[in-house]
């Protein structure tokens, strides 16, 4: 009997990543038994001070993604609607608000928070969402208010956010009744900085033709840089992942077997249709090589001073991808189109995410004008499958790929 052949296209590091995330969630779920405090924090929020103070960070948005991937979004969204929340609200928020009450979802709900940290650099929705949860759990809420940089980083914004970083530390010191260990903070800052560099390097590997991984893989490997940046585990893991990607490049292993067309994805993933979308594009020999979403967790690295982390944190967390003007977002997208040498742009018009989706049509026009590449816009929602029409999206993908194929390369 011959051994089962090893699927060379599979990324080996995926298993280790799953293990790391399982350990992380087990730690978080048993925080109470180990006398550790839990802070819920928004995906764009500065987690490093929490890590430095030994508080376990938990990400409702990551949880929302898990719910979406597990295809449990519909029930939980409906439950939130029964509670009076409009079906037009963000599906991450709706599922999380419902989950807190019914303890549903793939892991039976998140561990109860001791405090909430809300940074509004990604949207105004998180402010409302965290207010809801602060009332539900009756725990203190810290708001890090990062004014939108429509056209630049004004000095008054810099001063306001920097002051709030100090307020944040004081808040954590009061919550833990401990002083921040500045040496540890420096160390965590350096690890976070290094992890963001490595994450950028991971994403950069897809500039190679054919690409060793796709945006769908990036959506998966993203969880670590979101949840655990500032810890050594992330640094070690991404080093291994880069090594694996480099090996795949050397051996000529691509994620899409006959990659002919390269695409850029915009907005959050459609979590409940990742496999289907990946297969639909692969069937056309198309690989989604990059996306604007996962790169948000290393996009502001240019503002970080690893030797002066807390000072530079203000700017780095305020000037992230979503907290800038639409014209600047278009510029960043054009850079990506050039760097990854893509043939088309796929935009997810995401009913759940207004700051990400409004402005997309203007960006689409800029991209068309400046690069001439075809653009496809898919109407969907990241977690709630009720706004997704598979047959319609399938038809549109086919038509879009036909246009790309007809274009002279």
């Amino acid at each position: 009997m011959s051994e089962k052949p090893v699927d060379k296209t599979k990324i080996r590091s995926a298993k280790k990543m799953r293990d790391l995330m399982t350990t992380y969630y087990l730690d978080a779920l048993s925080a109470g038994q180990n006398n550790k405090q839990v802070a819920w924090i928004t995906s764009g929020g500065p987690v490093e001070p929490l890590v430095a103070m030994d508080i376990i960070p938990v990400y409702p948005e990551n949880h929302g993604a898990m719910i979406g991937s597990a295809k449990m979004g519909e029930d939980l969204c409906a439950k939130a609607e029964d509670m009076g929340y409009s079906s037009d609200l963000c599906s991450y928020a709706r599922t999380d608000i419902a989950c807190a009450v019914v303890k549903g979802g793939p892991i039976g709900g998140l561990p109860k928070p001791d405090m909430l940290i809300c940074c509004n650099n990604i949207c105004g929705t998180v402010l409302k969402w965290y207010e809801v949860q602060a009332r539900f759990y009756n725990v203190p809420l810290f708001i890090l208010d990062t004014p939108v940089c429509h056209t630049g980083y004004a000095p008054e914004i810099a001063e306001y956010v920097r002051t709030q970083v100090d307020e944040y530390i004081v808040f954590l010191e009061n919550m833990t009744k401990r002083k921040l260990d500045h040496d540890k903070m420096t160390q965590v800052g350096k690890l976070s900085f290094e992890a963001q560099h490595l994450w950028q390097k991971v994403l950069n590997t897809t500039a190679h033709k054919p690409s060793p991984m796709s945006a769908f893989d990036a959506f998966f490997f993203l969880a670590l840089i979101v949840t655990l940046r500032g810890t050594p585990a992330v640094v070690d893991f991404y080093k291994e992942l880069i090594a694996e990607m480099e090996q795949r490049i050397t051996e000529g292993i691509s994620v899409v077997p006959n990659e002919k067309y390269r695409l850029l994805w915009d907005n959050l993933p459609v979590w409940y249709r990742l496999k289907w979308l990946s297969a639909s594009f692969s069937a056309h020999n198309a690989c989604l090589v990059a996306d604007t979403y996962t790169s948000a967790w290393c996009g502001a690295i240019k503002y970080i001073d690893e030797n002066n982390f807390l000072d530079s944190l203000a700017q780095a967390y305020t000037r992230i991808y979503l907290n800038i003007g639409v014209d600047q977002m278009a510029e960043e997208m054009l850079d990506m189109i050039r760097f990854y040498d893509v043939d088309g742009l796929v935009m997810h018009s995401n009913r759940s995410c207004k700051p990400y989706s409004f402005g997309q049509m203007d960006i689409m026009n800029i991209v068309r004008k400046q690069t001439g590449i075809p653009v496809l816009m898919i109407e969907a929602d990241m977690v709630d499958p009720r706004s997704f029409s598979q047959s319609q999206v399938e038809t549109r993908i086919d038509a879009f790929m036909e246009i790309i194929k007809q274009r002279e390369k």
Partner: protein
Amino acid sequence: MKEIDRFHAAVNDTPATALHIHRAGRKTIGYLCSYAPEEIIYAAGFHPMRLFSSRHEIILAENHLQSYCCSLVRGILEDSLAGRLDFLEGTVFPHTCDSMQRLSDIWRMNGKYRFFADLVLPAKLNTKSAAIYMEKVLTRFKEDLETASGKKITDTDLSEAIAVCNRIRRHLFFIYEWHSQHPGVIRGADLYALVKGAMIMDKKEAADLLAGVAGRLEQSAPPAGRAKRLILSGSVCDTPDIFDAVEKAGGAIVGDDLCTGRRWFDSLVPEDAPPLSAIAQRFRNRMTCPAKHAGLTARADTLVSLVRKHQADGVVFLMLKFCDPHAFDYPYLKQVLDEQGIKSMAFEMDDQQSSQGQFSTRMETFIHML
């Protein structure tokens, strides 16, 4: 009342109103929400005018904003793209919700008007650092306006502007109170035309006319009827038919926390403090927009106290479709009202659709329950 007709006329033809004011020497700066510091715009020699959707069919804005964007934001962009706002010298976008934030970008990128400013106010209103920041944002805005107008804005200019705006607020406050004590003394549709008109007309003219209205209303006090006393809660209600429908169903509007109502004129700017600090102080203390954070219970506290103060029989939530900040607050506000034994109903509206029939039916049912 002929004074009230003037308000209706201004509301019904904003370009003509703007043109008239321009001829008298003030160019118009449009603003998008009630956190716009009208006093600074006025002190700079411009005319501050609130923008609303004229509710034309959405055609041009379809190329910029998806269907799940609220009708107010899409409607205002449609008006701009269709040239219906060509009377504007410029616009200012105070930062509130995600949709307005992106409208500001799209608006700026279209670059149709001479003057443009983002007023990136803090989202938090209840900390010291946010207060300091807010004042700096206002200072920057003042400087931007000085550059645009080519003249310095003095403290005297600001104090005069504050005085005019406060006069409008005082008169509206009096009219609201009088109407609450004597429902029926003025139609709801007229009451809200006074507020909307005051956002659109020349400030001094509005203040003078409102003084006249207040004086005349004070002369009449119709006997207490049997109408059920209601508080309206929500964001923007720009549909006069709604007010008629409330009254027709047997209701009287005795108060509100609307952005097109009390929230716009709530609280005075202190006249004995440095002007910009005073303007910032009012923004922190007045009724809160749910896109801002003034504490976890601020909006519920305000709503319950409105109900108590005006001895209301119930609350009507007017929800603008796709308005996230209000939709997030609704379940909590309803819960607090339920706990206090205050009845409420919620109605979802869209600027583009006339849902008056449905609203009337719901209203009648609700009034019967009270």
